[in-house]
């Protein structure tokens, strides 16, 4: 069996939600055993992002002021948005938008490694799905940084993995939200 076939996400951890008026923010923290410089490259370089992120970029996200096209991976209809990098202080702080979402990444040196924090928008009903999806992306990122890439697991791919439903359910329990209507059930009155 390959490492990808053997991959199973661990228990839910490292996610918080903040509510500010009508705006919900998902905050995800992951400690990585790799330097901020190395993590920064994985967060900004197109070839690295392709190995783990839920979107692809047509150029580096690492330069402030540049316009970059983001293509959402696995969306059921083409979803391409243009972003402008509003902050790129290597290797500490990175800010840009993904569609209507604000993405803010902070990298803090921690021993020889990095504490990585992501702030991103989330709608209430999708909190568990978003937390579970990023959880898996970060696992894949960790494999990539360790020189053992297992290939991107995002969007519909993630839902096929053993452990997806459990992870989604754990985050749903943590945040007290309902599981999203996926896989689709029969139509229901909203």
């Amino acid at each position, binding site marked *: 069996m390959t490492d990808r076939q053997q991959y199973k996400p661990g228990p839910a951890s490292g996610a918080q939600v903040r509510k500010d008026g009508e705006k919900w923010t998902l905050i995800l923290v992951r400690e990585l055993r790799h330097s901020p410089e190395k993590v920064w490259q994985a967060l900004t370089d197109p070839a690295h992002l392709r190995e783990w992120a*839920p*979107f692809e970029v047509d150029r580096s996200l690492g330069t402030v002021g540049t316009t970059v096209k983001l293509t*959402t*991976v*696995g*969306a*059921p*209809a083409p*979803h391409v*948005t243009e972003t402008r990098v509003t902050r790129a202080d290597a290797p500490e702080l990175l800010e840009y938008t*993904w*569609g*209507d*979402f604000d993405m803010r990444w902070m990298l803090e040196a921690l021993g020889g490694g990095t504490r990585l924090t992501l702030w*991103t*928008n989330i*709608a209430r*009903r*999708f909190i568990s*799905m*978003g937390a579970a*999806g990023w959880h898996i992306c970060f696992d894949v990122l960790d494999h990539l940084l360790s020189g053992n890439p297992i290939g991107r697991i*995002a*969007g519909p791919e993630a839902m096929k993995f053993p452990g997806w439903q459990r992870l989604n359910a754990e985050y749903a329990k943590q945040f007290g939200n309902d599981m*999203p*209507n*996926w896989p*689709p059930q*029969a*139509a*229901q*009155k*909203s």
Partner: protein
Amino acid sequence: MKIKVTSVYVDDQDKALRFYTEVLGFAKKTDFSQGPYRWLTVASAEEPDGTELQLAPNNNPAAKAYQQAIFQQGQPAAMFFTDDVKGDYERIKARGAEFTLPPTDVTGSTIAMLRDTCGNLIQLTQLARYSR
């Protein structure tokens, strides 16, 4: 091949979901998201496994331009069939929707047109039944 989904652009998916379910009476079918992308569909409560209508965000310039242009020309963005256009007109109007055209006989059908509050005109159509 089957026609199972069609879409309308909307300016706000949450507002659209409320209008299409609470005012028009459709049922939510699928709602999931990946990052900023949200796939949201409704289906007829009378035909839950029938054709779905995707409520697609108009958050790109092409979608906005198309939506505005056909709205300004009075073109419906979608058309729904009913067996009782007058009954639906009364029911939907009572829930606060604004009709731009009350039930009106045209060749082959009776039609009505309403605003969906999300940037579109929606046509209701009842096909005429001809006696033999």
